[in-house]
């Protein structure tokens, strides 16, 4: 994909009607660590793989999934500093919305605000698009569980299941195979772990950490970290499943 002269600025269309800078930003996300979001029978789960690229790193820090408010969480995929800027904006939007309207911002409103913010950076030559896709998971009494993904272009869609990053193809095929709507969040953890492990098949020798959060009927419908022991169990079981699959082949 050569941009020739039409990829120097985000404010320039190519002759086919493409904006190369936005596509390059999306490439930055596609080459980064995988993030998954899945809606299950009784909740939503967000999962991210984190490569421990140095033994000097502190475990279970350097988070990728954050709270925007009690019942809304955001996962970052792609360039993390870019993602954190979007996160700040989302937190500010959510907080100001609640201040003004006396109700928490529902996911479809919040994701719209975030999408508009991300999109704004694709319109002016003086700035570059965000190299980050963000996932918003939320619960509110009226709309139930919601999951949105916002891409560097500013596109946003509501999903049952979504993924971005290096392992997205693997994850998408797993989404096709398994009906997560029939699984509870507890049951689905294994498959989330499985997808995150498969996502980095080529780099098996490296050490990885898995960050997972959920909002479910069982945890008071708040966005919280999945307890570490549940994650560890899920990872163990997932590794066994992968072995079995490989033996089966």
């Amino acid at each position: 994909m050569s941009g020739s002269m039409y990829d120097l600025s985000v404010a320039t269309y190519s002759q086919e009607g493409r904006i190369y800078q936005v596509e390059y930003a999306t490439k930055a996300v596609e080459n980064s660590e995988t993030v998954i979001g899945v809606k299950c029978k009784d909740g939503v789960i967000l999962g991210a793989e984190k490569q421990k690229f140095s033994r000097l790193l502190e475990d279970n820090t350097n988070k990728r999934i954050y709270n925007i408010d009690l019942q809304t969480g955001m996962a970052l995929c792609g360039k993390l500093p870019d993602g954190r800027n979007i996160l700040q904006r989302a937190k500010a939007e959510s907080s100001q919305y609640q201040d003004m309207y006396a109700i928490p911002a529902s996911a479809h409103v919040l994701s719209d605000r975030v999408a508009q913010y991300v999109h704004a950076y694709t319109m002016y030559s003086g700035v570059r698009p965000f190299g980050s896709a963000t996932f918003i998971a939320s619960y509110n009494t009226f709309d139930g569980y919601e999951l949105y993904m916002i891409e560097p272009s500013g596109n946003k869609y509501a999903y049952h299941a979504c993924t971005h990053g290096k392992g997205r193809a693997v994850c998408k095929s797993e989404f096709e195979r398994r009906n997560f709507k029939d699984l509870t969040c507890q049951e689905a953890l294994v498959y989330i772990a499985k997808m995150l492990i498969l996502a980095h098949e080529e780099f098996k020798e490296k050490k990885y950490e898995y960050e997972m959060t959920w909002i479910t009927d069982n945890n008071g419908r708040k966005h919280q970290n999945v307890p570490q022991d549940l994650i560890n169990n899920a990872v163990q079981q997932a590794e066994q499943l992968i072995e079995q699959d490989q033996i089966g082949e």
Partner: protein
Amino acid sequence: MNYTDILSSKFEPETTGTTIMAVIYDGGLIIGADSRTSSGQFVADRCADKIDYVHDRIFCLRSGSAADTQIIAKYVRYYIDAHAQELGRLPAVATAANLFRNFLYEYKDSLSAAIIVAGWDPYKGPQIFTLPLGGSVIEQKWSIGGSGSTFIWGFCDSNYKENMTLQEARAFVLHAVAHAMYRDGSSGGIIRLLNVTKDKIEREFIDYKDVPVK
């Protein structure tokens, strides 16, 4: 605000020296108001409508300066409209109350406005929020306001019951407002009632001849 300037001029500001009332009953709420807008001793409007539309199931009752309350109600109507469009469903009564409160609090030094926000929403059913002069908010099961309300506290305190039927609540509001109009010089004219439920809004106009206390 320089009061002596206003008093020394021959023109006094238009106020809704008034009687306004809202009561929650089992299934909805009843709103009642008199219809007198006075400019000093001159009755500027003898058939005013003090029950302002904010949204399909949210209304506000205005007392204090007519100019102040009208403009605030206009802003809030606009903000609630935009908010409901984005939300895609009926707004919460608490949202409307919060928007009113922001005005009354931020501009408390310049405004003379006290408002009762009353309505129904699908989240908490019928609700009434009283917003007095300083910009505080209190949620109540029934509320009275305006200059005429001072004369009917005893009547209301003794006659209010929880979980009234529609007929009982209507009679309660009608008689209370009528009693206030009877004794308050700044309240009078006709009585307007509004019944707000989940399914519909019903406006009622009680002509002078039918006002129970005269």
